[in-house]
């Protein structure tokens, strides 16, 4: 059954919960309510995903009378194969983030309020089919993240929060210009109509520049070298929950935008500049991995590894126009999903370990395996998935990208494959140095995961292994969405 208004519910459930938390609740009550709200949200997003997968519902909602006709912004929500899995991912990581902040004692209710607002905004980004509404949610997500980093962060948190915000807002500034130019040319903000209307419309700037403007916003978010410098700072200094959301879903907004807008609306441009994407992708992968090896802070290490992993998304996109573009793009989309769960788990585990050891400096750690078996298992599973071990979700997405991108850019794909080797190196080395080795006396008293902490770890491990074994659960949906998009653009 197609439940009407379910997308609005998915967006406004977290928003309204956030308001309730802010106004009525404090302390543990706020926490409990946030857990219930995010559990409901997981059910709602799960339903959206499954109903779309099984029955192909798109759950369209449209209110056209929101703005005057001369400025036809609509409240237009819809789901397709590209967005459905990402909505599920947001629901999943939303509840994980709530559990990750279980032990927050400072300004508890504010923390949960911002997390819920953040989740609602991200769902809004993935469901909006009106360009301005999309942009509205895109901007809306900034403020919660700014507060999460700058209040509950560590180290140079205020600097990092501001850097995150300025980078993102600069990127989105160009995107706004792009959106307005598209509107001036086509007279519509409806994303489903723009790809048809764009080729025949009279644009006031060269379409190549327009493509660049749009892509910059997404490139900052993904992030693409050389616009990535905000990411290590933001990740390192963010609290655990914010890191999980940042790596898990916020980066995916960039990838989603590249797929939906850069590839979906400007297929010719993307094809023309595919080599740039391939080049940047390779730089991201190799440069990111090379820097990662040198890191001694666990969070910073994972942050740089995200730069490397997002390079694969770029590589997948660069196959645009080729015979294997479906495959490569499905791989790129899948990579976003799997990276969300894997990196989410890594940040989560690191956050929990840090709560106990009070250090993330790798040389100070070591020999934790015996004291923390659960965390060690989750760390190892996430690490192995991150380096693409067969049987985990990381393997599926990377191999799909390689298969898809190889016919288009042989050399780039070969070089990128070496990135996997580097990944193996830094992941294994990191696990070895931090978890194994001789036990240290100063960690003699620390304990393992509590029952509450096992819940989010379990959720993410199940999804990592589950997709590793049965990738079609998600990839079918992506394939359908990407095929539909490519057919519409007439690229294939």
């Amino acid at each position, binding site marked *: 059954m197609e439940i009407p208004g379910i997308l609005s519910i998915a967006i406004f459930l977290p928003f309204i919960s956030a308001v309730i938390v802010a106004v009525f609740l404090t302390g543990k009550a706020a926490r409990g309510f946030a857990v219930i709200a995010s559990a409901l949200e997981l059910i709602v997003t799960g339903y959206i995903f499954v109903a779309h997968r099984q029955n192909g519902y798109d759950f369209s909602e449209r209110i056209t009378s929101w703005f005057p006709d001369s400025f036809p912004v609509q409240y237009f929500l819809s789901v397709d194969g590209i967005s459905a899995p990402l909505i599920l991912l947001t629901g999943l990581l939303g509840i994980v983030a709530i559990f990750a902040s279980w032990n927050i004692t400072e300004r508890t209710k504010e923390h949960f309020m911002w997390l819920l607002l953040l989740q609602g905004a991200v769902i809004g980004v993935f469901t909006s089919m009106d360009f*301005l509404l999309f942009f509205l949610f895109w901007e809306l997500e900034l403020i919660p993240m700014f507060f999460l980093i700058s209040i509950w962060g560590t180290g140079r948190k*205020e600097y990092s929060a501001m850097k995150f*915000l300025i980078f993102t807002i600069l990127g989105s500034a160009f995107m706004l210009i792009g959106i307005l130019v598209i509107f001036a040319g086509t007279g519509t903000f409806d994303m489903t109509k723009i790809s048809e209307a764009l080729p025949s419309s009279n644009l006031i700037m060269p379409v190549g520049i327009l493509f660049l403007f749009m892509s910059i916003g997404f490139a900052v978010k993904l992030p693409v070298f050389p616009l990535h410098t905000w990411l290590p700072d933001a990740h390192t200094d963010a609290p655990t929950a914010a890191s999980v959301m940042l790596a898990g879903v916020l980066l995916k907004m960039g990838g989603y935008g590249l797929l939906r807008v850069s590839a979906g609306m400007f297929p010719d441009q993307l094809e023309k500049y595919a080599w740039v994407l391939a080049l940047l992708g390779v730089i991201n992968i190799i440069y990111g991995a090379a820097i990662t090896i040198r890191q001694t802070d666990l969070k910073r290490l994972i942050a740089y590894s995200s730069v490397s992993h997002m390079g694969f998304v770029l590589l997948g996109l660069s196959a645009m126009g080729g015979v294997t573009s479906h495959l490569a793009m499905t791989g790129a989309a899948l990579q976003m999903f799997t990276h969300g769960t894997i990196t989410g788990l890594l940040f989560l585990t690191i956050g929990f370990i840090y709560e106990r050891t009070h250090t993330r400096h790798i040389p100070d750690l070591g020999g934790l395996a015996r004291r923390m078996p659960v965390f060690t298992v989750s760390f190892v599973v996430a690490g192995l998935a991150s380096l693409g071990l067969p049987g985990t979700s990381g393997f599926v997405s990377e191999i799909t990208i390689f298969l898809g991108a190889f016919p288009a850019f042989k050399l780039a794909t070969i070089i990128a494959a070496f990135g996997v080797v580097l990944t193996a190196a830094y992941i294994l080395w990191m696990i070895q140095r931090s978890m194994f080795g001789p036990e240290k006396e100063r960690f003699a008293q620390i304990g393992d995961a509590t029952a509450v902490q096992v819940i989010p770890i379990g959720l993410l491990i199940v999804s990592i292994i589950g997709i590793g074994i049965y990738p079609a659960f998600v990839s079918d949906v992506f394939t359908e969405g990407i095929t539909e998009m490519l057919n519409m653009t007439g690229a294939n």
Partner: protein
Amino acid sequence: MNYADIILIAPEISMALLASMIIIVDLFSSNKKLLAPLSLIGLLVPLCFCIMVRDNPSLGFKGTVKVDDFSLFFKYVIILATGLVILSSTTYAKRFDKHQGEYYSLILLSATGMMLLVSAVELITIYIALELTALPTAALAAFIREKKSAESGIKFLILSALSSAVLLYGMVLIYGFTGTTHLSEIGTVIANHLSTSEQITDNGILLFSVILITAGFGFKISAVPFQMWAPDVYEGAPTPITGFLSVASKAAGFAIILRILYAVFENEALSSDWASMMAVLSAISMSVGNLIAIKQNNIKRMLAYSTIAQAGYIMVGLAAMAGNTTLYTSGPVGILVYLAGYTFTNLAAFAVITAVSEDSGDDSVDSFAGLIKKSPTLAVIMTISMISLIGIPPTIGFMAKIYLFGAAVETNLTWLAVVAVINSVVSAYYYLRVVKTMFIDSPDEGQEIHPKFGVLSAAVIAISGTVFFGFFPKPIIELARDAINTIIG
């Protein structure tokens, strides 16, 4: 003058009467607490008259005053701003002791001038209204008996006189060229002249007068390079008055610029010239305002520079007025939407500043440290206001910026839109610094902040408008569109 004429300016008359009544009540009553509620209730009278005359827009006083949707839009904004300023002055004004009556009546008189200004369609009337606006404001700026405030008042007075002189010179040139002072007739004469004569040199005179007039009004709206007065005056003036200056006087200034540009200089041969001038001034205003604001530690001074930048954003709409063949309307509509939104947003900010400085006795950004712990309501209101000034949803600031920058893109001014969005990014830095101070920095011990009812309700009303119209901007956009449609005739 006849009965119809009186009805036409009934809002202004009632406003002036209200001002006089406040003085009289002040004279005979020792209870100064009455004054603010009385002024607020009294404001309903001009508001009612505005709504009354809405249905029959017409020209009066031998064609010098015009009541139409355009002037009414601004009158609503001015009355709203006046009301909010009076509401947030309720406790602040207590420090003026015996002079509270003068304080309120000067605000009302200045508002009278602004209301007259937005409906004036004749050069001399415009000039008189302008002076009526400026003189009470100068007195208000100097209202606190200390050096800074006196400096603020005298600076405002002198520069105001100077800019009026420049403006008058521009008007004289126009009169010399056309032989009339009525805007509509001036427009016709210029149009006839430009269509019959091949003489380009005559355009030079017209263009020169446009430049002089722009300079005169540039002062009002504190656009670069006529912005020098703003920081000192804003810093020295009583805080609610600073809010009043930044909002109402700017709205009136833009109203009359729009009126003159549309009525007189809409001709294509001229418009392309002044449009590019506006574009350049706009880009400079926002860049200068934002860059200098970054360094400010006094919050009023910071908001003064922010006002300069905001004037730059609004001027994007002026630049976007002139297209290749016809005048575009989305630019001016954007201006009106932006001004209405800015009124809500900025007055919320100034109400919070008033409330905080009442208890901390300090205007520095640092006095906001830890405000979230001391007064969560004020902190949240200030945060939303700052977010709206940056242009982040869900606020009217976001909607208005989209509308204005969209107009720029529509008229091939993409470069200006790019400058404007980059400026928004720069501005995010200093606006968010305030937010950061409120949420993260630890508060001074022993400093309590208890916002009083009046100022708190002003802040709440203003911020409610900011958020409500951020979600549902349609009513404002439609009002603004009707308003603009009446002046393009």
